[in-house]
């Protein structure tokens, strides 16, 4: 069907005027479409950002068991407080799963042990890779652990992968380890700062 557009068109000698008109019309259509999209974008942007913040807020409050956690964000690093002061940290971390990116929120107690792991967004196959999210026991394995973790599938003893969802389990594990790295670096930087 697209073939017809590409058929050579016979143009008269002074063809540039109709050609210009065609170009102008196409340009007008493009401009109107771009306008419509910009309008929709402007309308939906606050809501989309609120969605993202809300999923993060739910993940954090879930990990720390607080109704309304008080936290500030610095580029994917969250410091979580209650009335008495800092209770822990959260790090957002992304790794490639089977169906696309898998984004986690990893919560740490103030001493650096993992307090909980929640999946913020994923596009894994329902019934397969998505089981890393649906099976609470899997993410629960991370609670209380610290340092770099290794899956049983890869010769480690820290975490058991879900059979049939190895790729997704690996992605989760990789994301958690990345998050731990970020936390270690941050804490080192701040304690270095305190010493000065």
């Amino acid at each position, binding site marked *: 069907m*697209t073939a017809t*557009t*590409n058929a050579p068109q016979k143009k008269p000698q002074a063809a540039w005027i109709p050609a210009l008109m065609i170009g102008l019309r196409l340009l007008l259509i493009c401009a109107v*479409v*771009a306008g419509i*999209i910009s309008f929709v974008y402007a309308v939906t942007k606050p809501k989309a950002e609120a969605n993202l913040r809300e999923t993060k807020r739910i993940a954090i409050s879930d990990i720390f068991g607080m109704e309304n956690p008080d936290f500030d964000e610095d580029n994917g690093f969250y410091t979580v407080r209650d009335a008495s002061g800092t209770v822990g940290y959260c790090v957002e971390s992304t790794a490639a799963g*089977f169906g*696309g990116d898998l984004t986690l929120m990893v919560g740490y107690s103030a001493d650096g042990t993992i307090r909980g792991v929640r999946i913020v967004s994923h596009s894994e196959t329902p019934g397969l890779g998505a089981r890393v999210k649906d099976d609470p026991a899997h993410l629960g394995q991370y609670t209380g652990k610290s340092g770099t973790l290794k899956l049983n599938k890869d010769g480690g003893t820290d975490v058991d992968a879900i059979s049939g969802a190895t*790729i997704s389990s*690996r992605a989760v594990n990789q994301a958690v380890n990345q998050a731990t790295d970020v936390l270690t670096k941050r804490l080192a930087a701040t304690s270095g700062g305190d010493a000065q």
Partner: protein
Amino acid sequence: MMNILLLMFTAILVENFIFAKFYGCCPFLGVSEKPDTALGMGMAVTFVMTVSGGVTWFVYRFLLEPFHLEYLKTVAFILVIAALVQFIEMFLRRFVPALYSALGIYLPLITTNCAVLSSALLIVQNNYNFIEAVAFGFSAALGFTLAITVFAGLRARMNAADPPRAFKGFPLTLIAAGLLAMAFSCFSGVHL
């Protein structure tokens, strides 16, 4: 260098566009009746996807990102791809007639091949640099070519079969594709 090779291996076999990701299934099922045409289509797609991988990367980095117009990427990419296909067609017709006569009839079909658009979008999503973008476009298209040529060989033999009437034509084609996908799924656990 190792990095690029791993990326290419993954794109060709582990995350094969057809059998693992379903990008580009329409031409895969439509233009795979004969091995020759399948190879022609595969080569045309490879050509366009390699070039479009680089061009869309430039468009995104230097046009969309500086002006915070990332949300227009789908529109921009499909326009770039359509224009690019048109341009490549004119260029080949004028300067490389031999290649044009081999690939020409497949080129117009490529604009609506979702493999091309999805590779452009994946390049942005995965945050590739320019070399990775071109390598990814090239190797994903190579995976497509591999899939479509192997499948065309299979179909040529299938024509001799006499299936139940209800399965004639498309259903049988799909089931053969399913079996081939099963074979390819042995790569899906490979982690590099």
